[in-house]
């Protein structure tokens, strides 16, 4: 893919320092790190793909499959936990029948637990794509998910 090449060209000095930055830029552009991208980086930096995958999977930022159309991120920071986000997590798992880091079969929803999103005064907090939802309750979460499902059904 030409986009990957153009990202790689930004790092003319071939050294391993840049590996994380390259991966970050690719993820920013495509939303995930594909097999192709891994191979390309490995050719460019002369590091085995296994090493790159090992590094990328060490960090929680990188994902290896595309996000769903609606990417749900729910805060699992301490403050949200104290404000009982667990009930909401479980409710979402049940409703969408997926777990942390997975995508629904119809590729509509993907789900991610994240660290603190700095909405500690308004927990539990969740975002769907860019939209932020605060002070969640079970009813609220179900309404929100139903709303998105309805849009898709129409």
């Amino acid at each position, binding site marked *: 893919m030409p986009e990957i090449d153009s990202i790689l060209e930004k790092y003319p000095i071939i050294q391993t320092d840049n590996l994380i930055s390259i991966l970050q830029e690719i993820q920013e552009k495509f939303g995930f790190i594909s097999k192709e991208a891994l191979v390309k980086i490995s050719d460019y930096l002369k590091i085995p793909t296994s090493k790159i995958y090992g590094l990328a999977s060490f960090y*929680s930022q990188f994902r290896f499959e595309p996000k769903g159309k609606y990417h749900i991120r729910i805060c699992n920071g301490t*403050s949200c936990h104290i404000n009982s986000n667990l009930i909401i997590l479980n409710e979402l798992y049940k409703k969408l029948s997926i777990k942390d880091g997975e995508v629904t079969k119809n590729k509509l929803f993907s789900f991610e637990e994240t660290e603190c999103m700095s909405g500690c005064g*308004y927990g539990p907090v969740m975002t769907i794509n860019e939209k*932020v939802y605060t002070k969640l309750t079970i009813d609220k979460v179900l309404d929100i998910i139903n709303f998105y499902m309805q849009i898709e059904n129409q």
Partner: protein
Amino acid sequence: MMTVSSTQNNKDFIINNILLNESEVFTNDVSDKLSIIKRDKITFPIITVSQNSGSIITGAQNLKELIKNYLIERNIKATVIEVGSLGICSIETLISIQLPGKTKLLYKNVKEENFKAIIDGNFNNFIVEENVFCQFRNKMHEPYENIPYIDEIAFFSNQQRIILKNCGIIDANSIDEYLAFGGYKSFVKVIKHYTHEDVCNIVNQSKLRGRGGEGLYTGKKWKTALDTPGDNKYLICNAGESDPGAFMERLLLESDPHAIGARKAFIYIEWEYDLAIKRLTNAIQQAKEYGLLGHDIYKSGYSLEIIIKKGAGAYVCGEETALISNIEGKRGRPRPSNAAINGLYGQPTVVNNVETLVNIPIIIEKGAQWFNSIGTEESKGTKVFSISGKIEFVGLVEVEMGTKLRDIIYRIAGGIPNNKKFKAVHIGGPTGGTLSEEHIDTLVDYDSIMLTGASLGSAGMVVLDEDNCIIDTVKYFMNFLQKESCGICIPCREGTRRMYEILENISKRPKDDFGHLSLQRFKGIMQLENLAEVIKDTSMCGLGKKAGYPVLTTLKWFQNEYEEHIFERNCNAGVCQELRTFEINVDVCIGCTICAKKCPTSAIVGSIKNAHFIVQDKCIGCGICYNACKFNAIISK
């Protein structure tokens, strides 16, 4: 429209008259112009909108643009400025309106729905009482009547804000304003007049301790790096854990890589902190334009370059050697070496966190003696805490070292909401410790906190009330740690996982009481303390060494809660789901039989249209009936 943005004119004026002016006395001309930039004298109204990650959560992202558009629509001449956070997150979004000649008025809880009414009101001499928060004291301005000053609000009056003094007040994107408030002056002073040793000595005398986790003396660390020969020396600023946006973006740069003779400085920041990264990039750009960064700064012969490195989400990278691995493009794993001697690319490297570095310019400006006068015997200065959980005002507070916990929780942060009872306060993040009510009069400094078995850590405070379960909280931390353990030291990798499993066992109801199950469960509990101690003694880095803290402190201070879970199989707070017991309220139950049909162990008996009954011996506490009942007839205990 009047702007104080970076025009060439302004730039030269500020550099020549303020930055390079070493006396504190200004000519009339200069102070006149200064007061315009400082917004003491204004000709048009100024509206500030707080833009930080906390306020963006509440929807402030569009607020600035909306206000701007609204002002244009109504043909009002006014400037809209984006500022950081005042540290009080529970009542965001805060906006302030300053009319010429009047004091600056601060409004809370401003949203897209109500901002028009507030602004209209203020311009027409009508203050929306519901939203007004306080006014800023300024002798040159005429005050509003019956509105408290900011220093009369308990949240602010009980704090000692040195590090956060500019936060939420100055324009987060303008270097001019920062300079006008005296920024970068220490930096210029240092590179022009001080040698490397001088700076190290000043910092050493100030007894400043690292604000990261360990509380090591910063001066010592610097001295080691300075004394170690090396081709290149590096300074790394660890901004991985600090609260973004709200914090100190701009102050950061002023920190002083000069002291160790570093030519290159890195700022490590988590990739998720968009806003902070944006502002930092902007601040570095502006500093370059003003000649504060680059080659031979202000003819001092000193050069400096700052590079931002984005972290990729690994908790262990808060550890300094792990952070160095990350910057080198490797897995963020700690190594057994002293970074000050053998750090980044094998060169002497100093790693400090943001708060530590922000203290430096203040020490340089006011002297080590002054800094020594604040705080306790061994912990000098102030400390910034983020306080959250079950608390009235969530936010950032800065207090003198040695303030009582009680003062922070009740006087500044406003205590526990909804008349609930205080249960515990957890200090220092997942590797910190939990303190109970009997510690509420503990002084907050490195050593007093250490005595209780907790650690100050990154100084996050989470307050728990009676509705929270201690076991559940510790379990949460253990789950976090076992995920984040990098895997080098086996005691940490396996031990945290095992501790999590033991805690999980405690908070579960056993399937049956036969065989070895109960015995195993009990053996695990007996070993919990031992396990935590072993992990502490045999791990390499800070994460492992402190991984046992939550368990050890809670075992010590909340033993009764463990016992209650283990012996009585009861969770008083009702958080541990499987330990809940259920009863049916016979007066409400109409006998619809839904719960009985859904019960997986047939523990619910009863006939149609008659109240049902739960056989406690059969019940496994799954809670399915509780969720299924449409009449709220099932009570959870």
